[in-house]
C-alpha cells in the first residue's frame, strides 16, 4: 500500500518536471542550437572577464585622449597587436574584448524592457479583448507600420543633446554609461510592438483552453489566471522571442552608433566601426574584426533562438 503510494508519487513528480527536461533533451540533439548556446556562453564569459583578458587597457575618455594614444597608429595585425590598431592607436582586439560587455548590456536590457512592455500590453489586450484590445492594437499597429529606425534616430539625437551624456553613473561598483543607456531606452520603446502582438496571440489562444475555464469556474481572480496559469504556459514562446530580441537589439545599436548617433565615450562595437569608417581604405582590419564580432554574437543568439523554438514548440518540427 505504502510502496504503491510512493511509486505513484514519484511518477507524478517525474511528469511535472519533464516538460523542460524533454525540451532540453530535444534541444541537445539540435547541433546548431547547441553550437549557438556554446558561443553565447563564450560571449557572456568574455563580457564578464573581457577587461582582464584584453592585452591593453580600455579606450580612455576621448576628451582626455592624447593623440596617438599607444604610439602605434594604424598598425596592421602583427604579433603585438593581433588584430592591428585603429586610427586612434588603440588595439582593436582589446577594443572588441572591452566592448563585449556593452553589447550584452544593450541586448539584455533592451530585451528586458521590451518584454516587460510587450507582456503587459499583450496580456491585457489578449486576455480582456474587446474595446481595450482594439485601442491597444491600433497603437501597436501605428508603431509597427512606421520605419522605426528614423524615429529612433530623432529621439536618440534629441535626448542625448542634454549635458552629462558623456559621463557614467557608478552603480554598485559598475560604471553605467548614460549615453548608451539613453540609446537602450529609445530602442526598447520602439521595439515592443511586434512582440506584444505575438504575446497577445498566445494569450488569446490559451484563454480559450479548458483549464482556464475551470479556473474561472473555481472563482480565480483575473490576476491569478494571468500570472499563475496563462503566463507559465506561454513562457516557452517568450523565451524564444527574447533570444531573438537580444540579437536584434545588438544589431540595431551597432547601426545607430555607426551612423554617428551613439555614445561617443563608450566604445561599443558599432562605435569602433564608426570611428574608423573614414579611414577604412587604410585600416580595413578595424572595420572587419569588430563587424565579425557583431556577426558572430548575433548569429549565435539567432541560432539559440531557432534551436529553442524547435525544442519548445515541437509541433513545428515533425
Amino acid at each position, binding site marked *: 500500500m505504502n510502496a504503491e503510494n510512493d511509486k505513484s508519487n514519484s511518477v507524478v513528480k517525474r511528469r511535472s518536471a519533464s516538460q523542460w527536461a524533454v525540451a532540453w533533451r530535444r534541444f541537445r540533439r539540435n547541433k546548431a542550437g547547441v553550437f549557438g548556446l556554446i558561443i553565447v556562453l563564450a560571449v557572456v564569459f568574455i563580457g564578464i572577464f573581457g577587461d582582464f583578458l584584453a592585452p591593453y587597457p580600455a579606450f580612455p575618455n576621448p576628451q582626455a585622449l592624447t593623440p596617438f594614444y599607444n604610439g602605434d597608429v594604424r598598425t596592421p595585425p602583427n604579433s603585438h597587436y593581433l588584430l592591428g590598431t585603429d586610427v586612434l592607436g588603440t588595439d582593436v582586439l582589446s577594443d572588441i574584448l572591452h566592448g563585449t560587455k556593452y553589447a550584452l548590456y544593450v541586448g539584455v536590457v533592451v530585451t528586458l524592457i521590451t518584454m516587460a512592455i510587450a507582456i503587459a500590453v499583450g496580456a491585457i489586450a489578449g486576455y480582456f479583448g474587446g474595446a481595450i484590445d482594439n485601442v491597444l492594437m491600433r497603437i501597436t499597429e501605428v508603431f509597427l*507600420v512606421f520605419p522605426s529606425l528614423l524615429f529612433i534616430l530623432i529621439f536618440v539625437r534629441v535626448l542625448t*543633446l542634454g549635458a552629462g551624456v558623456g559621463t557614467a553613473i557608478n552603480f554598485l561598483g559598475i560604471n553605467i554609461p548614460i549615453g548608451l543607456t539613453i540609446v537602450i531606452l529609445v530602442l526598447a520603446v520602439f521595439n515592443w510592438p511586434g512582440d506584444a502582438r505575438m504575446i497577445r496571440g498566445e494569450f488569446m489562444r490559451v484563454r480559450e483552453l479548458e483549464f482556464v475555464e475551470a479556473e474561472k469556474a473555481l472563482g480565480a481572480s483575473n490576476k491569478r489566471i494571468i500570472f499563475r496559469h496563462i503566463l507559465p504556459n506561454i513562457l516557452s514562446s517568450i523565451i524564444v522571442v527574447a533570444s531573438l530580441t537580444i540579437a536584434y537589439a545588438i544589431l540595431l545599436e551597432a*547601426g545607430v552608433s*555607426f551612423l554617428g548617433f551613439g555614445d561617443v565615450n563608450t566604445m561599443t562595437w558599432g562605435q569602433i*566601426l564608426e570611428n574608423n569608417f573614414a579611414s*577604412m*581604405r587604410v585600416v580595413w582590419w578595424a*572595420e572587419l574584426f569588430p563587424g565579425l564580432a557583431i556577426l558572430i554574437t548575433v548569429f549565435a543568439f539567432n541560432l539559440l533562438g531557432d534551436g529553442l523554438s524547435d525544442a519548445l514548440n515541437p509541433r513545428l518540427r515533425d
Partner: protein
Amino acid sequence: MLRRLRAVAQSSMFRYIVRRLLYMIPVVLGISIIAFITMYAAGDPISLIKMGKPNVTAQTLEALKAYYGLDKPIPIQYLKWLTNIFQLNFGKSLYGGGSVNSLIGPEIWPTIELQVISIIIAFAISIPIAVHSARKPYSKQDLAVTSFSLFGVSMPTFWFGLILIIVFSFSLGWFPSAGAKGAAGFLWWGNPALDVIAHFILPVIVLVYVSLAQNIRLIRANMLEVLRSDYILAARASGISDRKVVYRYALRNAITPAITFLALALGSMLAGAPMTEYVFSWPGLGRQYVSSTLGLDFPTIMAITMLITIMTLLANLIMDILYVYIDPRVRIR
C-alpha cells in the same frame, strides 16, 4: 455615365476607401504634432546650432530667428508649418537657408530607384528558393538555404556594405565605392549607362541580400506550416501532382504574409535604407535624413518624416485592398 459613377460611390469598396482616407487625417496630424513637439522641445534650433560658435552676435541670432519664424510661440509655428504643407511648401532648411523642397527634391528619385530595384529582385528570387527549401525541410539544400538566410539577418547591413567596398572597390577596383554617378571624365566602364550600372551593383547587392534573407525565412516558415495542413493532405490524397499542390494550393496561402512584408517595404521605401545609403554615400533621402538629424535641421527632418508617414499609410491602404482580392476570406466592413 452618371449612373455608373453613382454605383461606384455606393459600392462598399468605395466607401471603405473613403473611410480609410478620412481615418488617415487624424493619424497624420497626430504624428506631425508629436514629431514637431519632440524636436522643438529639445530647444530652439538656432541656439543649438550656435553651440560652440561664441562669435555670433545677439543681433544675428534675432535676425536668424525672425527669418525662420522661430520667434513665435510653438503652436503658432506649428499652424504656420501646417498651412505651408498644404501648399507643398516644407519651409527653409537651417543649413544654407534654401528651401527644403530644393534640398530633398532631387534626392527622392535615387532612393526610389535603388529601393524598387532591390525589392523586386529580392522578391523574385526569394519565392522559388523558399518554396524549394520548404519542400524538403532539413535536407542538405534546405540547411544551406537556412544558414545563408540566418547569416543575412545576423549581419549588420552597413558592415556587409563596408566589406564589399573594401574587397571589390578598394582591393580589386571593379566597382565604385561611393555615389550614384561618376563625374564627367571619370566614368566607370567607359560610358554613361554602364557607369550608372556600376554604381548600382554594390548597394543593390547589400539591400537584396538583407531582404532576401528576411523573405526566405518568412516564406519558408509559412510554407512549412501550410504544407502540414489538412487541406494539402486532402489535395495530395486526391492525386493532384506534387507540383500543382505546392505552387497552386500551398503557395497562395503561404505568400500572404510576404505580401504584407512587400507592402511595408514599398511603403517605407522613401525612408530608404539609411545605413546602406550612408555607407555608399548614395545621394538619397535616407542619407539626407541621417545628416539632417545629426545636424538638427528640423524643417528637413519634418519634411522627410511627413513624406514617409503619408507613403506608409497609403501603402497600407493599398495592401488592405489587395488582400480582398488575394484572400477570399477577407471581407471589407
